[in-house]
């Protein structure tokens, strides 16, 4: 029986993971921004047979609320076996180029809040001496592309932070998994023109995340075909990369 904390629990990918954990008899502490949707997410998991579902509405960029959130989570679950960090936004790259405010805001949601949350969680998990921090980054963090480098840079910060944290917590028996999805059909990508053959469902992504948690994967590309694609993309020399307009 797993005790699971999810930040960004209304995310389509997080919901798909939670449903699979529900089938394994998990208890949840769900944190999300939108309280009405959070109630619907919680009802879904309860009706599907989750052992227990507790919720807390919190904006991830409300840094002052993090400690109280973690305290109530620990009060409810007593020990956290898995923490999944799933919240995120896809900023409009063009407006990020016009002014700094949207870029800074995108960083706050996608990078800074995750860094703040992971810092608190790391200490909790270190005390526990067990558990897995599963953090959703993105393939977009592997390389800076003209079409979305603000989002990519925030995800790069998360990936690098997780890599360091993994090395630190490894000694304490705590695992950190960096999850790098490719294109996924979720509200975040609604209305975008994406290459249909490369778009995965949240369920496909979730199956790999749930299996990755069991296997203690370090860097999880999902779907799996992104691993070789990103291997090539990471190795394209800079002078060529800047001309490719990927």
């Amino acid at each position, binding site marked *: 029986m797993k005790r699971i904390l999810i930040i960004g629990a209304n995310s*389509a990918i997080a919901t798909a993971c939670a449903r699979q954990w529900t089938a394994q008899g998990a208890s949840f502490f769900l944190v999300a921004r939108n309280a*009405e*949707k959070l109630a*619907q*997410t919680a*009802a*879904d998991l309860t*009706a*599907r*047979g989750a052992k227990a579902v507790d919720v807390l509405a919190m904006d991830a960029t409300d840094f002052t609320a993090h400690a109280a959130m973690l305290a109530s989570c620990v009060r409810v679950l007593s020990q956290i076996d898995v923490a999944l960090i799933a919240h995120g936004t896809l900023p409009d790259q063009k407006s990020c180029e016009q002014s700094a405010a949207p870029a800074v805001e995108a960083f706050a949601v996608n990078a800074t809040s995750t860094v703040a949350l992971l810092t608190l969680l790391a200490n909790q998990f270190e005390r526990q001496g067990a558990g897995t921090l599963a953090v959703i980054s993105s393939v977009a963090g592997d390389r800076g592309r003209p079409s979305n480098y603000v989002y990519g840079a925030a995800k790069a910060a998360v990936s690098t932070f997780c890599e360091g944290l993994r090395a630190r917590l490894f000694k304490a028996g705590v695992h950190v998994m960096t999850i790098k999805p490719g294109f996924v*059909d*979720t*509200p975040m*990508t*609604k*209305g*975008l*023109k*994406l290459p*249909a053959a490369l*778009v995965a469902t949240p369920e496909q992504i979730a199956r790999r995340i749930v299996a990755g948690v069991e296997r203690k994967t370090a860097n999880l590309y999902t779907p799996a075909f992104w691993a070789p694609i990103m291997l090539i993309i990471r190795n394209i020399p800079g002078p060529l990369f800047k001309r490719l307009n990927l």
Partner: protein
Amino acid sequence: MSQPLRSWGRYPNLPQTGHTAHWRSELSAQVDAVFKAHGSTLPFGNGRSYGDSCLALSDHVVETRALDRFISADWEKGVLRAEAGVTLAEILRVSIPRGWFLSVTPGTQFATLGGAIANDVHGKNHHSRGTFGNHLRCFSLMRHGEGALTCSPGENNALFAATIGGLGLTGVIDWAEIQLMPIRSSRIDSIVTRFADLDEFFALSRELDHHHEYAVAWIDCLAKGTYAGRGVYIVGDHASDGGLNVDDRAKLDVPFTPRLSLINKASSRAFNEFYWRLQPATPTPRQVGYEPFFYPLDRILNWNRIYGRAGFQQYQCVIPDIAAEAAMRELLSVTAGAKSGSFLAVLKRCGAIASPGLLSFPLAGTSLALDFPQTAHLEHELFPRLDAIVRAAGGRLYPAKDAHMTGADFRNAYPAWEKVEALRDPALNSRFWKRVTG
């Protein structure tokens, strides 16, 4: 951003652009936006209807698949409330381990709750349980300019009746509450036996149907002469032991659509001959899982692609009891003589339980379903001859499977259509509705 959507028969070839609503709170704004931009829209479940009844007149549909949350479940009483985009497979995955099954299920578990209501689907237990609508407690309907209305036999009952079998035209169902059926095992005790001709089928059906929860027959509609009308009669009941397990057989897939159909008269004849020979000549009991019993075709994902790029049509009619035997004989003889053979043919006696829905398809009688690869021959030669038989026998065709019926045939067979038209949501219209009422 999703790929173009099609109906299951991939005919008519009118790719639909999907606009997804991810949350109930977004549904009404999504419908309004598509309506304003394109003149009309239609809810789209999982595209398991064959013809054009799930295609919007504007070719822009509102997809409901992402509305896939359960809302509440009472496992003491077997009452489940869920969003309309939940599939029947998702319901079974959760309900079976708790001892509950769908009261009525069609031959695919990939239909959504909303789609099952909008076509008021029936299954192999129509003679014992009626249609999906007979087990529907209530639902919520989003109507343009009116917001969400709860509909049940006691509340907004005109909309309740018009929406069951209402072909997605009366509003978008955002959630529904259904009564499940208790089971002690997920396995099915079935009895299978061959029959030599239609007389034998009707005799078996009259004698045995009412002793069993489920009854259906497969018929070899390519067999001629002395073999004409031969087939296999199958009954089943939920077993009393064997565990409550979710069947999770690995699925095969047809990964792409070949240019031409792999199904033709020769391959169909070979398959039917082979299948017939595999079946026992005398009544033989077998215990099988619920997936192979109810959903044999779901085993192969995208099986509709084997019909090639032209797609295929299903011809499903129901003939009232009084005329059924003679009409079935005629329908099968016309089909056996036709240029294009039917690969699959399913025969089912429907019962007399009335549906609450206005445009529900089944009636007390016999239903026949035939699948044909799409060619111009169907609409010009074969279907007009079959339609004439159905018309003369006082029968009707199933809109969920239809891409050809004439407006006159529809309006005669479904006289309540005007009531549905009067309650139609002004933002919604389908290719089918325009064709048969326009």
